[in-house]
């Protein structure tokens, strides 16, 4: 276990700034490479997408204008089962990974047709290797008998799945600290002193010195990146989430809008708003989410909502991640994305290998994800 943080100085081989799913996944991968890792985190006050998200391990439709991102998402999904097994083995926590495929439900024929066209183009971009099928209403009803009578259909892809994001977060913290990771929760990082191969990170009364630093601070990366000679033009995008009471299982498949957890809880979401750093909820958006959920699954009309929240996605201008090492200060790496759950297995695998070795697997095409594109 890590000791409680005391004022003073800490040394590590790598300092990861940000203890959400992105930072912890990278930290896990670096530990697996035999490195001594410190994670600096804001603690409970953080704007924590890792605690507000929808828990999807999702591939279909991601990267429709960026085949490299489509490939990375799919690679991570294929690595996810081993990633989850590793967490269960080390922590005893089952994160409820289910990869039986996902449904993107379309309410209208027009929406379904647009989606079919998009996914076919993505399949062409991947030389035909992009499995999905278009389900009309009857085919969808055969998979999910509770589907609403007015729903046009859905696209189904065997590449998709979901996990319990709260169990995932807990398991990743536990695994990190159990393996002697130093989790330092002294508040926001106020300053990074950068020199090639030597970085001094200041957080509260702590000073952490290391030869490499990874910026995984979500929205905080915007302010931090220039201090290591990088740029992170990320902005918040709010999603509101509704939680309903636990009911007997009726929905095995994750969908883009509604899912049911292993315990029977219903989660509804997929709103998008630009409202700055406001994590609140609004009646009109919640009503829209609830109405759509009931249209998809009429039985939800009689299921009670018990909780709601707003959480902030970490979005770049094109929605795709940034992976980049600083040229000015080699040893400083930027990792930011809005799909910290889906990409967790890739972050713990090939992305951490890139950070540990300084050399990226060429098949990842990481140059595509440099911030220079903006």
């Amino acid at each position, binding site marked *: 276990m890590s000791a409680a943080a005391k004022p003073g100085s800490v040394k590590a081989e790598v300092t990861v700034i940000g203890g959400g799913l992105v930072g912890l996944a990278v930290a896990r991968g670096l530990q697996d490479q035999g490195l001594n890792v410190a994670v600096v985190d804001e603690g409970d006050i953080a704007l924590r997408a890792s605690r507000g998200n929808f828990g999807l391990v999702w591939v279909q439709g991601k990267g429709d204008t960026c085949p490299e991102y489509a490939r990375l998402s799919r690679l991570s999904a294929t690595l996810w089962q081993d990633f989850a097994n590793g967490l269960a083995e080390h922590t005893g926590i089952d994160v409820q990974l289910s990869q039986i495929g996902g449904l993107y439900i379309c309410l209208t024929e027009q929406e379904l047709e647009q989606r079919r066209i998009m996914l076919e183009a993505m399949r062409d971009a991947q030389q035909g290797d992009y499995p999905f099928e278009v389900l009309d209403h009857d085919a969808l009803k055969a998979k999910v008998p*509770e589907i609403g009578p007015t729903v046009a259909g859905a696209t189904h892809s065997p590449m998709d799945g979901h996990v319990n994001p709260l169990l995932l977060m807990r398991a990743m913290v536990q695994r990190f600290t159990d393996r002697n990771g130093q989790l330092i929760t002294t508040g926001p990082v106020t300053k990074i002193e950068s020199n090639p191969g030597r970085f001094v990170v200041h957080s509260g009364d702590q000073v952490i010195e290391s030869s490499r630093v990874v910026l995984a601070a979500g929205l905080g990366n915007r302010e931090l990146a220039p201090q290591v000679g990088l740029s992170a033009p990320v902005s918040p995008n709010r999603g509101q989430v509704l939680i309903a009471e636990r*009911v*007997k299982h*009726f929905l095995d498949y994750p969908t883009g809008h509604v899912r049911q957890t292993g315990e029977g809880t219903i989660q509804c979401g997929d709103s998008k708003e630009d409202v700055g750093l406001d994590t609140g909820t609004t009646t009109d958006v919640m009503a829209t989410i609830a109405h759509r959920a009931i249209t998809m699954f009429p039985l939800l009309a*009689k299921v009670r909502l018990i909780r709601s929240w707003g959480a902030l996605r970490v979005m770049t201008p094109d929605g795709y991640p940034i992976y980049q090492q600083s040229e000015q200060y080699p040893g400083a790496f930027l990792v930011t994305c809005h799909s910290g759950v889906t990409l967790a297995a890739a972050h713990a695998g090939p992305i951490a290998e890139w950070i540990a070795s300084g050399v990226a697997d060429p098949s990842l095409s990481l140059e595509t994800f440099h911030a220079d594109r903006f």
Partner: protein
Amino acid sequence: MPTDSNFKRLPANAAAEVVIWVEGKPLKARAGESVAAAVLAAGLGPTRTTPVSASPRAPYCMMGVCFECLMEIDGQENTQGCMTTVAEGMQVQFQRGIRNVPEVEDNA
């Protein structure tokens, strides 16, 4: 009915008597109190079993937060007993495991 309860009503809060039915048996409650309070005062319970492990539970926070007091009240499963005021003739069953979802046809 069991009467061995750690909870005592304050004499200052005397109120009219109301009879509710818990698991098919009559229970004298006080007007204005919650179902959870009435059940605890009578020493009844456990009042639910959990959906995942069937672990027995009873009302706990008494302020609508913890959801330990879920019962079936007047036919509505998963109702928070601490947020529901007793009423004459109210029918209360303990919540056994997960709530059954209503059939789709019920909404047609």
